[in-house]
């Protein structure tokens, strides 16, 4: 069963990754990042059960906490960018370049 869970996790991670690359709406991109984090959490939880200790779950817990913090800040940034640029497209925020 472990293998199945891990493959599912990998699949979700890859989908999330592809989403980050494809979507331009910053919020959606953010959601895809969350998806990737969740996929990781799944792997952690699976490994916790596989190895019979709680470390995996602990990490997943911390990941959730950090992800929550990250979402807060990330969304605040998105809101701010939207306020000044009237757009939530990640492609529009491309001033930091060559």
């Amino acid at each position, binding site marked *: 069963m472990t293998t199945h869970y891990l493959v599912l996790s*990998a699949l979700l991670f890859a989908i999330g990754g592809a989403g980050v690359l494809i979507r331009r709406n910053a919020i959606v991109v953010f959601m895809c990042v969350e998806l990737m984090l969740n996929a990781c959490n799944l792997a952690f939880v699976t490994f916790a*059960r596989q190895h019979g200790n709680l470390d995996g779950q602990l990490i997943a817990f911390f990941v959730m906490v950090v992800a929550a*913090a990250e*979402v807060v800040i990330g969304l605040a940034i998105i809101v*701010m960018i939207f306020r000044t640029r009237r757009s939530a497209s990640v492609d529009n925020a491309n001033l930091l370049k060559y």
Partner: protein
Amino acid sequence: MGETITFWVLAVVSVAAALGLVFSRKAVYSALMLGVVMLSLAVLYAVQDAPFLAAVQIIVYTGAVMMLFLFVLMLVGVDSADSLVETIRGQRFWAIVAGLGFAVLLALAIGNVAFSPAAGLGRVVSGRDGNVPALAAEIFTRHVFAFEVTSALLITAALGAMVLAHRERVRPKATQRDLARTRFAGPQPSPLPGPGTYALHNAIDMPALLPDGSVAATSINRVLARHEMEEGYAPTDPEKAALIKQVLEKDAARDAEPVAGDTPIQVKDALQDEGELQGEGAPQAGVASGKENAPQEEDGK
């Protein structure tokens, strides 16, 4: 057996929802799809001896994070859908290649490992009256320092979010009296004509018509008009389109003048070129961005 069924059902659901998240045009749908994935994962956590995480997943993610997402979506504009035209050449193709490749590689890696049957958490949990006390014991003993640091992180994040989202008031809030004075001192004390009056379509993006059938310039919603011009949705009526454009240009010229506008023609050109601009030539970009900022400030007031 029960776990297997649960897994397969939820796996299919979550993958489908994940794909939906990536491919749905509207951001709200994406958010809902993400919610589905999270809920599925919560169940899978519960199945895998992690009831506490399952609960946290639902409370924190589905409850708090998803709400935050939706809230921001509302703030930004719920119905703004992504255009599906890819602007970066090859991005979509390579994204899919990379995603698939990565998935295949990981799957290969995982598939190559022969896992022994899962050890299960029974032994760990049983000595500690269940999963939550066991986790709690871990967190508050071995990882207490990390835990405290996360709390600091959360506080910082909360503060950060407040700081970022906060906007400083630079001048005192206008009182009713001030507003009234400004309004009556200005050129038009009366309200602007509403949009859509006598128009063919009763919509906010349609300018009002005067009794003689011509367009009332003052009724044009600048923000929407700008947006539409940029996106290329001009009104079908060429007269209206021309008028909207003219009004916009006048605005742009007025805004750009203090920045860099010795000749209005230059500004006009800059406006027309805006679609291709995207920061190509530096001087023109300066004009363009100056102009871009100006209406926003107007909005803020």
